[in-house]
């Protein structure tokens, strides 16, 4: 039997989902091996249970909370797709302001019609089996994870720094060009995309596990940031790094 796969989106830009639709050829190959049973953007077929549920976006309303619990209960494997779902992502920026202020800014006088919660990663509410990181996630990694799961094995998601991939590709380190890069403490897997184009890494894949944050703050402050700015840079894609960020 082909595994039943569903894709859901929560609060996010849907950039990750769209991204997925950009590789039609490979998609046909995947579809040969799986049954897409629910995918809001691509079809409206609904099923009760899923072998694999891909979830995009962060959780930021009470309604989202109920929905994610419901999906979790109906899914064997739940996969967080993209930075929003994995670590709160850009959405989590609103957490830096009091909720009321954020609500007012976004919805103006209608704010009371839109109940809101701090934007949190899926893992704040339900067990997440695997994470496909990045903002947006890369196609290569999505394919790698899907093929691994179809092979019946756990996908290998690197837990080392972007610097590793930079070195393997012989990129010039952007620190040498006066940029400030989050690569030394950011999880690899993107093949050092940004530094490969001469850009600094903004850390969209979240931190490596067991990061040495103090050492990173020292690197950043040595390059001219204040401690506060350094902290903000590390928090951009890491709700867990923020005070009161995670339950």
């Amino acid at each position, binding site marked *: 039997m082909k595994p039943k796969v569903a894709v859901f989106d929560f609060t996010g830009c849907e950039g990750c989902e769209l991204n997925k639709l950009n590789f039609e050829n490979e998609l046909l190959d*995947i579809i040969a091996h799986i049954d897409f049973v629910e995918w809001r953007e691509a079809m409206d077929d609904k099923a009760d249970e899923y072998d694999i549920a891909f979830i995009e976006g962060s959780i930021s309303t009470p309604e989202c909370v109920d929905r994610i619990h419901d999906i979790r209960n109906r899914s064997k494997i739940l996969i967080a797709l993209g930075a929003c779902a994995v670590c709160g992502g850009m959405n989590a920026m609103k957490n830096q302001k009091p909720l009321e202020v954020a609500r007012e800014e976004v919805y103006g006088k209608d704010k009371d019609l839109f109940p809101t919660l701090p934007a949190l990663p899926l893992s704040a509410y339900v067990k997440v089996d695997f994470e496909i990181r990045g903002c947006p996630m890369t196609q290569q990694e999505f394919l790698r994870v899907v*093929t691994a799961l179809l092979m019946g094995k756990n996908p290998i998601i690197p837990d080392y720094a972007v610097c590793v991939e930079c070195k393997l590709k*012989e990129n*010039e380190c952007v620190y040498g060009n006066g940029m400030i890069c989050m690569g030394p403490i950011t999880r690899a897997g993107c093949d050092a995309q940004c530094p490969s184009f*001469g850009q600094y890494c903004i850390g969209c894949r979240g931190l490596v*596990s067991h990061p*040495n944050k103090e050492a990173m703050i020292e*690197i950043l402050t040595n390059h001219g940031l204040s401690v506060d700015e350094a902290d903000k840079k590390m928090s951009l894609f890491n709700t867990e790094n923020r005070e009161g960020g995670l339950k």
Partner: protein
Amino acid sequence: MKGMFLSKESVVPFIEHLASQQKVFAPNKKVHGSITFEEVNDANDVVLNYARALLSVKKYFLPQRETLLKYKLDDNSFEKQEIEQVNAIFLGVHNYDLQAVLKLDYNFKNNNPEKNYLKRREGAVFVGISYEPDNFHFSQSVGIDPHNTNGFDLFLHKTEEGFVLEVLTKSGEKLLDGFGEISEFQGEYPRNENFNASLYAPQSKLKEVFANSYDNPIWKEMAEKCVGCGTCNLTCPTCFCFNVEDNVGITLKDGSRDRHLDGCMLRGFTEVAGGEIFRDELAGRMRHRIYRKFKYISDITGEPWCVGCGRCTIFCPAGISIVDIVNRLVSDYDKQQVLNEGQMTSVLD
């Protein structure tokens, strides 16, 4: 010495002469922005005056990524990988990098010689070049004299007017066929022996130092500054550890078993199923890395396994310096010796 003088103007023709015979790899800045060894397509792109390449020529014999075998999943069969000899001229190699290759030769020749490395390595021809040490080179301290031509076929000694091209082997001589007259002459070139960075002790003493530095507090102190990014491992010309992964094609019909360079500074390096990590602390990993350069292999071979290129230091985002670490160990050891002697005499008194 045997060789010839090469004026500045004849450098490009010299490179072209080499390239007309065989593939040439040389330092280049255009491809990656950093200095990297690349195949020479245009002799004018070659950068001969450089501090250090991001990765040494090791990458041609032990590539960053390599497919070990390809398999088919439906019938469990596999295809052997044809390993091709690199068969090229490596031009503009600094002598510490060639010494590093000779050290890798040892690692890949001994106990289970590895075909992948050795076959690619065979037939490589090296044209060395002298360099001006910057604040990070310390090769002289690990026994690699700046004009050491050991292992090279040809060597370019820099002078004001160009290069003294020294011929060291028969294959080197053959490369110059049709290029110019080789003669026995007194090649004069300025000897660049001023290193700003140096270790306080030779390997013979470091052996003692390292035997007594396992519990030195510096490992913890450095670990506080280190982010564990692995840059030091990945840029080191004598590091050779790798990981192996199976990658399956999207059709689930076939795939490949690939290896890529790994690093002992990375936390997952010693992780086993169930989550145990044998060197969980950064301090332990830092010590392992430095001990690999000055003790574990060195105790067997009598040579440091570090060539003093300075890569791990200049490329470290946290500015951790291998020279500072080793020198601190040496001075702590010396202090301890003085203390011990003091105790000895007081016992004797």
